[in-house]
């Protein structure tokens, strides 16, 4: 198997997706007294290409999927898919982090379980925590939240659908559970 350099991975993605890649960075971390280094690739990709991107990634090597991390930005939700390539040798592993934005108006992402079955747990998590519909993922009872958890409330959201009005750095942002500002102050 040919081992690609991080620059070549970015190049490969740019070639395939062109303008869809709005940002790409390569981060190099130097570790230890011997000053060896390893790299991480960060790609910002338009949502409609996310599935093809993962398919392209799996042509390099079957990637290890770590987790999807997310953040509510207001108008859209930012999802970061964390993958890694090339395990097995010292300092050779490359983290590939794919950032994509999901607009609040149309909260849905395609499932990746048909390419990497291991993504299922994380996809169910973003479904429950952010209220993002995962297309192609079979419906099932809640995996993380209790069965009787309030409908249409998503713990990691920072808008009116969030769990608690203090979700953005202690600022009052919504009013779904604690209705009045005074009550919030009492809690604080």
């Amino acid at each position: 198997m040919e081992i690609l350099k991080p620059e070549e991975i970015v190049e490969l993605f740019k070639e395939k997706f062109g303008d869809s890649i709005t940002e790409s960075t390569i981060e190099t971390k130097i570790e230890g007294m011997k000053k060896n280094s390893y790299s991480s690739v960060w790609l910002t990709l338009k949502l409609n290409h996310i599935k093809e991107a993962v398919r392209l990634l799996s042509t390099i090597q079957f990637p290890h999927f770590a987790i999807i991390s997310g953040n509510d930005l207001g108008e859209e939700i930012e999802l970061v898919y964390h993958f890694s390539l090339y395990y097995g040798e010292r300092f050779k592993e490359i983290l590939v982090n794919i950032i994509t934005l999901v607009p609040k108006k149309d909260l849905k992402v395609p499932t990746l379980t048909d390419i990497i079955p291991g993504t299922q747990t994380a996809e169910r998590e973003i479904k429950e925590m952010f209220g993002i519909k995962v297309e192609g993922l079979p419906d099932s009872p809640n995996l993380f939240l209790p069965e009787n958890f309030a409908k249409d409330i998503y713990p990691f959201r920072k808008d009116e659908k969030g769990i608690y009005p203090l979700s953005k750095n202690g600022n009052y942002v919504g009013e779904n559970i604690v209705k009045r500002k005074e009550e919030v102050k009492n809690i604080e």
Partner: protein
Amino acid sequence: MSKITYSVPIGPVHPSLKEPMTFNFKIHGEQIEDVYLAPGDNHRGIEFMGMQRNPIQIIYLAERICGICSASHPFAFSMAVENAAGIEVPERAQYIRTIIAELERIQSHILWAGVAAHELGFDSVLYLSWKAREVVMDTLEILTGNRVNYGMFMIGGVRRDFSLEQVSAIRKAVDYYREVYGKIEDIFLNDPTIALRTKNVGILTEEDALRLCAVGPTARASGIKKDVRQDQPYSAYADLNVKAITPDVFTGKIVGDVYDRIIVRLLELVQSLEIIEQCLDNLPAGEIVAEKKLVKLLNQLKKAKGRGIGRHEAPRGECIHVVKLEEAEAPEAWKARAPTYNNLMTWVPMLMGQQIADIPIVIASIDPCIACMDRVTILDKSNGKKSILTKQDLHKLSVEKTRRITP
């Protein structure tokens, strides 16, 4: 003969995950036909709590994600914040972190060995191995003041230095484990009954492990040479030659069964001892934390902007924390992923086609905390009759199987 399928749920309390876990088995006769996983009765929302707090407060939350991995989570979290804020950790602190993490691996693997023995019905082995575990717990107490939740980690370093007496206490513990290791290995790897109960049981193929993104000893026992300490070395691991351990170094072949997972964990005990000794031999002098004044550190973190990833090879596998700082007191986003999160899907291929009596050891073999085996209901589909198997009953079944096949 009419085919009756039973449904067996197991769970839900399970402390090693962020949520308790319920298993739902479809059983035909003694064989498992299908497995459904249903976690989620008690999500504690630690990430949500963290997003209302500053990074230094989060260390203590992260420490309490898991009682056994109480060094792994703060380790990964500190690395993520340091990565995001661009903080350099002094070399001495990196070595101290590594020593604590490896001592934790020793206590975790011995704890697991005891649990595995108990699930097979070897309670004397449970007592003996947990007696051996006390030495490392005492050492951790000498070093940090606590047996669990060590409180050693700080953004940019560690909170306590090692004195010369403490270093000699570590050396004493290492010598002790070198002495007893032969016995532990002999019990687990040469005993014919343990071999009968664990060989070719709960097999996870290399392909399945890759597809389900397994991590840690679970992945390595299936032949995937994956170890963060080797692939992306951090802290003192960058100076040491850590290699991922696969069972073929011991048996010459990879099966991916419970026996292989035992081999990997036991060999990792020796590896941890070597790492600790090398760290002690090369322990550099100097500062133990990048910024001593907490107010100054908090101000620095408040001005920081960026994303950070921290990965640590916990006893159970890769533990990854993702942090996003946005020039605010609390992090904009924090995601913690424990190794069992990835490994729980591997139970499905492992348990398929196994017997009910093998459930305890197979579930224990990926090293979740076994407290999930809390309550079992057997539901007879044809007449809707429900009978409940407690953990004791299930354990009894497992012990009986061991007695039955003991040569």
